[in-house]
C-alpha cells in the first residue's frame, strides 16, 4: 500500500497519525482486482490476449479498505460484446471480508481487445 501511495503521489494519511490501521487510497483496489489480471488470462477458453486497453473502471466502496484486511475476490463476466472489430469484456469483481463475508468493494471494469493480427 505504501508503494501504491508513492506511485500515485499520496502523502500521509490521517488514520496513521491517529494510530489506527491505514485506510487505503480508493483506487488501491486495483492492486487486488484488475492489477494482475490473472483471472482473465488464466481461462484459456476466454481467449484474452495482451493486445488490449482498459476502457473504463468503477469502484463502489461498501466500507473503507484498511491495512490488514483479508478480502476474497470473486470475478464474473458481466458482459461481452463485439463492436467494430474490437471486443469489450466487462468483469465484475465482488470483494468480501474474508472473516465476515460482508461486502468491501465491488469493481466493474471494461477491457477492450483489439483484433489480433494473423
Amino acid at each position: 500500500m505504501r508503494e501504491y501511495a508513492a506511485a500515485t503521489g499520496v502523502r500521509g494519511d490521517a488514520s496513521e497519525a491517529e494510530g489506527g490501521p491505514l485506510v487505503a487510497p480508493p483506487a488501491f483496489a486495483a492492486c487486488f482486482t484488475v492489477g494482475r489480471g490473472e483471472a482473465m488470462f488464466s481461462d484459456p477458453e476466454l481467449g484474452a490476449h495482451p493486445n488490449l486497453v482498459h476502457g473504463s473502471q468503477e469502484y463502489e466502496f461498501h466500507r473503507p479498505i484498511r491495512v490488514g484486511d483479508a478480502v476474497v475476490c470473486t470475478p464474473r463476466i458481466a458482459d461481452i460484446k463485439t463492436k467494430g472489430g474490437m471486443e469489450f469484456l466487462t468483469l465484475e469483481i465482488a470483494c468480501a471480508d474474508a472473516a465476515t463475508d460482508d461486502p468491501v468493494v465491488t469493481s466493474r471494469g471494461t477491457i477492450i481487445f483489439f483484433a489480433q493480427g494473423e
Partner: protein
Amino acid sequence: MPRFEDTNIGDQIPVQTETLDQARLIVYAGASGDFNPLHWQEDFAAQVSPTGGIIAHGMLNMGIVSRVVTDWAGGPENVLKLSCNFRAPCPVGAAVSFGGEVLALDENEHTATLAVWAELEDGAKVVDRRASRAVVRLT
C-alpha cells in the same frame, strides 16, 4: 472535508498537474502488479499502442484522480464511489491535469456527486469527465 452546507453545485476541485514520465510508469507497474509491456517496452508498444508509442496505465491516471478526490473529500473513507472512463491515450512524458466539479448534492445522504477528469495540454480527455464520477460523503 467540505461541509454539506458550504458545498455548491459547480464547485471545483483545485486542478493539479503532473508529468507522467517513464520512471513513474515503472514505479506504478511495480506497485500495482500491472506489467503490461505497453507501458514500458517501446518495441511492443510500437505494434499495439493506439499512439504507436508507450502510454501510461489508465489505472495510474485513475490513481491520481483518486488522490485528488480524496484530498478534497478529507480522507479515503469519504469516497463512496469512483468511476473513470479512459478515452484518449496518455503518452509517456505527458503533462496531465486532474480536476473535478460538483454536479449534484443529495440532502438525505449528505453526499456530493462530482464529474472527475484528466486532460492533456492539448485538451485530449484521458479520463473523460462526461462519463467519470465520484460520490463523496460530506459532513
